[in-house]
């Protein structure tokens, strides 16, 4: 099957001259569809940059990135925005929920921006809320929820438009281990029930041990590791 994300000799450098920092050199990876993928690395190793490259938020210094067979390098910024809006969902460390809106309204707001017709919205909201297990909280506002619940709302908002890729940057960083496990569980639910691919970064070994496919950033390279998970 065609991989959802593929890189060919991708390099990313910052700065120039003495201050030049080489993050990756000639990275070749391909990520299969409908998987939960973890990216591991120390802080400063370029986890976020890798995710930004996949999400067309950043461009590589050299090399190519394909998303669903489409070469990212050739797209202009408008096409990139279009791609991000239609195919990708983002979950940041910052939850970014609008404080005045309820859970339901926050998710609907995301759908409205993507341009999902009004009739389809209630169903999508219901489905995404069910996947993250927040049916009882649908009429609450963000400040009435715990950190883990807020993060799950952010995930529900990201999955509601039905993107093919979800990019999550440290989604469990501010949560205790148990709540972090729930998030991973919700991700597993999601790849079981939908066609989505989820790529998330983390520095937490315990969290990463629950993820089957892990890419490790080390020495400007990206190495693949397969975990035996029971989840």
């Amino acid at each position: 099957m065609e991989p959802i994300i593929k890189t060919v000799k991708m390099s990313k450098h910052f700065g120039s001259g003495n201050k030049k920092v080489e993050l990756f050199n000639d990275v070749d990876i391909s990520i299969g569809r409908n998987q939960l993928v973890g990216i591991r690395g120390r802080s400063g190793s370029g986890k976020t940059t890798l995710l930004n490259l996949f999400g067309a938020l950043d461009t590589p210094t050299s090399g190519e990135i394909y998303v669903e067979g489409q070469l990212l390098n050739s797209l202009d910024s408008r096409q990139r925005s279009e791609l991000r809006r239609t195919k990708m969902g983002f979950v940041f460390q910052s939850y970014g929920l609008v404080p005045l809106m309820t859970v339901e309204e926050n998710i609907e707001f995301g759908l409205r921006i993507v341009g999902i017709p009004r009739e389809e919205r209630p169903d999508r909201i219901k489905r995404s809320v069910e996947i993250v297990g927040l049916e009882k909280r649908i009429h609450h506002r963000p400040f009435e929820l715990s950190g883990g619940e807020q993060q799950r709302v952010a995930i529900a908002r990201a999955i509601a438009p039905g993107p093919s890729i979800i990019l999550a940057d440290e989604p469990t960083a501010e949560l205790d281990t148990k709540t972090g496990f729930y998030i991973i569980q919700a991700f597993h639910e999601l790849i079981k029930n939908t066609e989505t691919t989820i790529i998330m970064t983390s520095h937490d070994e315990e969290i990463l041990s629950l993820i089957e496919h892990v890419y490790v950033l080390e020495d400007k390279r990206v190495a693949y590791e397969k975990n035996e998970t029971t989840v």
Partner: protein
Amino acid sequence: MGSELVRDRVADTKTTTKYDQGMLLFNKLKSWAWIIVRAFLLIGLSFVILYPIFLKISIAFKDKADIYDTTIMYIPKNFTLENFQMVFETMGYFEALWNSFVLSGSTMLLTTISCALIGYGFARFNFKGRNILFGLVVFTILVPPQTLMVPTYLQYRDFDLFGLISLFNDGSGIRLIGTYWPFLLTSATGVGLRAGLFIFIFRQFFKGIPQELEDAALVDGASVFRTFFSIMLPNAIPAIITVMLFSFVWQYNDVYFTTLYLDNPNVISGKLLSAPSTIGHRLSAISGGGDATDPLYLSMLVNTAVLLAILPLIILYMFVQRHFVESVERTGIVG
């Protein structure tokens, strides 16, 4: 005849005094009732505000052994400072507090200066498109910043000014994510945290200052900036204090921008957000791994962290409370 009349009169005055006494008693009762109701209301309101703080203080001093002691409600049997010590260490409290104060203090100053200037411009100068521009300012109050998350992030990950920076920097902008620059730049240019509201406050306040003051300054030969700094600003102290306080407290409490701009937010709000996680990790490390952390003990420590996070604001409030109440009254801004 005469004596009867006198008697009547006496009786008359007697009844009136009786009536007056009744009135007096009623009034006395009424005022007492009012005092009681008022006291009741004030005590109730204070209770609602103070109870959570007292509860936090009471929990923060409890020992681990006190959690399961059913005879303890509020006053712990074994006073301890262990919770504080633990939280100080895991949160890196003083460093985070220093960073928070530097960040909030600098954005407070820059926001106040920029918003005062902008507000003055809107209040006193007639130029083309003023109303449209002010409409845009109001628009920034209405549109939640959360809707602009990805653009905001991109803006500062690859910061550029009309393509000038990339000219001298090998074709790419500067990476400002992870530094305080995004906060400083936005607040210095009047688009910082809730700057729209602050501009609005200043505009309203400057509009309320009599035009004659400025006319007099003009006649005396003051320039626009001289008028602004020597006449308008000294008169706008209530507005300045309001804006300063709000901008400080909101920046101190803000989680959205700190987690968006900083990779590793080493400020109080960010540390508090991750407190359950870091303290939990520390506890399981102490107990030698495993999931054996006592959730009640963890929540006790998190509670202490919350108390420590709000403590600086409470102490600050004690000093500026008088100005706060006065200035909020005079600028007519609530909450």
